[in-house]
Structures are given as C-alpha cells and as structure tokens.
C-alpha cells in the first residue's frame, strides 16, 4: 500500500536526518515510527496521551510572540509563589 502525505519541510528534513543516522531507508523509518505510535495508542487511551505539539491559531501564536517580546512583569501572586519558603 502506498500513502501520500504532505509534510512541512522541517519534518521531512528531520526524517531524512534521523533515518540516515539510524541506517534505515525512509520507508522503514516511517513504518517503525508509525508502529511505535500505534502501539502507544493501543496501550494508552487517547485522552491520556500527552501530545508533544500544541497547535495554536495564527492569532494565538501572535499573542505568544508578543508575550515573549514584551514580557509582562510577574504578578504578586507569582512572586509570592516562587519565593515563599
């Protein structure tokens, strides 16, 4: 069976890089990755898997970038939390 997927350039580059390092061709590498993921899905209900990527809307990502560039001062509650013995 053949699957056609559209991947971002970065993901494709990572697949190329890791499959080369592991001495696998891309087909074998992708199949192994899929099998590992399917095994995790079999063993853990989806709601208990912690996906490592959070996808935001464009607006949400801009909000995050703004927060990183114009970092808000810590709130009193945060300062108290981080410095209480």
């Amino acid at each position, binding site marked *: 069976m053949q699957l056609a997927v559209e991947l971002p350039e970065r993901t494709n580059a990572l697949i190329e890089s890791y499959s080369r390092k592991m001495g696998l061709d891309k087909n074998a590498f992708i199949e192994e990755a899929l099998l590992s993921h399917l095994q995790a899905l079999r063993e*853990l209900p989806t709601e208990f898997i912690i996906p490592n*990527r*959070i996808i*935001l809307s464009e607006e949400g*990502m801009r909000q995050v*970038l703004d927060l*990183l560039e114009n970092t808000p*001062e810590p709130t009193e509650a*945060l300062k108290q939390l981080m410095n209480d013995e």
Partner: protein
Amino acid sequence: MELDFFFQQYAGQNQFRHYLGVTYILAMENTVAGFVTISAGEMAAADLSSIMDVRFPNYPLPIMRIARLAVDKNFQGLGLGKKLVKNSLHLAVKMKNGYGCVGVVVDAKPESVAFYQKLGFNEPKPNKENAFSKKLFLAMKTIENSISK
C-alpha cells in the same frame, strides 16, 4: 476521577514505557498527597509559514507542559497544588538553561483557570477550542523575573 485514573493506570506507562512525560509525586504521611505530570513539548501555529516573522526562527517554540496536576481530597487546602506548580516552574527554568524553553503551558480545567491567571498565565487563542481544558501560557522571562536573586 479522571486524574485518579490517569495516575493509577497510565502515569507510569507514560513515563517508563513510552517516555511521554514524567510524574512527580508529593508524599505526605506515607501516602500520595498530590502529583504533577510534566513533559517537554513545542508550540506552533497551524500554518507556521503564515505566522513567523523576523522576530523568531521558522520552527516550533520549545515549551514545558504541566499536563496533569492533582491533590488528594484529604490534603486539599494545604497549598500543595501551589508547591507542585512552583517546583514545575523551577524545572522549566532548568530546562531553559539546559536545552531551551520559551515558557510553560498548563492544561487547566475550567475551574482552575482563575488560579493560573492570577499567576500571570495567559490563554492564547487555540486552533481548536476544548471545553474540558484550556491551554494557558506563561513566558520564561516572567518566571525568571519572579525569582528573587
């Protein structure tokens, strides 16, 4: 109930079998009084190419996630949840120093959102709304600035 179930059945599998996160336990009186599960992650826009500008590189941003946090009913009201959050934020600072982290994202249940907002967490607009949990973000610089030198 869901958090009990996660802790009893899946926290260990997540950590030791699939390496999806690490669960820290807060023990009191020889019992588990609370726990927090954290994991490294990344944050991206649905279409990254549409958003990135000169301010940031064209790849997802590394973050630390507070994925699950709970305190046993018998130990609530003692500030243990705060202790778990505090330790998690200190771990995020270590992550930033070790291999990069722009901030912390917490998966907060609706009833906990106000607690995190008081600490300065913001809710960036998600790609898809989730009625059961909100993803709240706190920038690393804000965390670092909150710690007295």
